[in-house]
């Protein structure tokens, strides 16, 4: 049963299985996302896609919320802009992101979001936490300095490739994506080296070896094929 509601004052309708984000995208309304990726399950973790709902004091994640009949959604209020900027500042403060010398410079979702959402400097202190690089895999490497913990790699490996060699360990600020119960990636016997994790990673945390600064481009179009197959080929 279709539901009708409003996004930024515009009358829209949604099918039962459509989230606010999906409806907004269909209508060309921009809502920033980072952990969300079409074709993977949603986790509602990055909180960049938060939207305000009339009468609700707490914003909700558009990627994880199904609209209700008559709902009035606002996607880009001044309050949300402030929150989103602060979320980006937190990410830049948490990791050690040095865009100038990154393999994905110019092709990075985090870098793009910062420009798009007008984050030109960081009001928070950088945490400067030492992080590791695992380059033990023969083709790929993970640089935790650039990881935003979106868990796209975890989900694509589990949900699409079916290998589930990625997961998250630790808690809070010590969280870290790991391969094979925190063993070196190169020693993983279950990794199929398919490279899906590399392509869905929004930043330069996962990359192909031999790529120099700004040379690594990501390609997620394969997810669309899988979505089509899952939807029964139509």
């Amino acid at each position: 049963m279709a539901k009708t509601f409003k996004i930024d004052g515009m009358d829209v309708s949604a099918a039962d299985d459509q989230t606010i984000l999906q409806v907004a995208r269909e209508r060309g309304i921009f809502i920033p996302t980072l952990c969300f990726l079409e074709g993977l399950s949603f986790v509602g973790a990055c909180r960049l896609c938060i939207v305000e709902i009339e009468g609700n004091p707490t914003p909700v994640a558009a990627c994880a919320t199904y609209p209700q009949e008559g709902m009035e959604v606002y996607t880009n209020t001044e309050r949300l802009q402030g929150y989103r900027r602060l979320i980006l500042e937190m990410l830049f403060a948490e990791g050690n992101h040095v865009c100038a010398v990154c393999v994905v410079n110019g092709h990075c979702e985090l870098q793009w979001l910062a420009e798009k959402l007008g984050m030109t400097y960081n009001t928070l202190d950088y945490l400067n936490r030492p992080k590791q690089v695992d380059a033990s895999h023969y083709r790929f490497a993970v640089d935790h300095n650039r990881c935003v913990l979106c868990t796209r790699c975890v989900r694509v490996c589990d949900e699409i490739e079916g290998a589930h060699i990625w997961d998250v360990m630790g808690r809070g600020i010590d969280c870290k994506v790991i391969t094979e119960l925190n063993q070196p990636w190169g020693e993983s016997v279950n990794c199929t080296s398919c490279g899906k994790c590399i392509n869905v990673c929004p930043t330069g945390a996962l990359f192909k070896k031999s790529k120099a600064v700004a040379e690594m481009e990501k390609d997620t179009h394969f997810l669309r094929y899988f979505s089509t197959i899952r939807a029964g080929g139509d």
Partner: protein
Amino acid sequence: MSKAKVATVWLDGCSGCHMSFLDIDELLLDLADKIELVYSPLVDNKVFPDMADVTIVEGAVSSEEDLHKIKHVRAHTRVLIALGDCAVTGNVPSMRNVFPLDKIYNRAYTENATENVGTPTSLVPPLLSKVRPVHQVVTVDVYVPGCPPPASLIGRVILDVLAGNIPDVRAKFG
């Protein structure tokens, strides 16, 4: 109309932002009519004026000298522009922040040294424990990210500031 007094300073950076500034090409001629370059690593005058209308800072705050310099500059500047990622975020210089200072000194002056081995005690300004972006040390009025920021952006920002505005910059890091 008197010319605006413009200064540029260079802290811990690579000079790339100054190079990009010079890349504004013929706009330099327009600027020459509007500004007087009162202090810069690129000119001979080595005394910072009593009050500059605009100062453009390149580089992060890495050493005690940088700290001293930027505080002096701030006190004698009306509008301070942080130019480029080093000034705005710390960028490459700040990559040392994850290491303790003594390890960095040791690496530079002992492990990799072939002569005069040992950390110098004079002439080289002591490093601060962490490299910091300019705005964490003094108040910054305009932020221009980029490594380096494109020349066109630099030109637009400077003209905007000279016209008495604080421009709304949208630019990417890196």
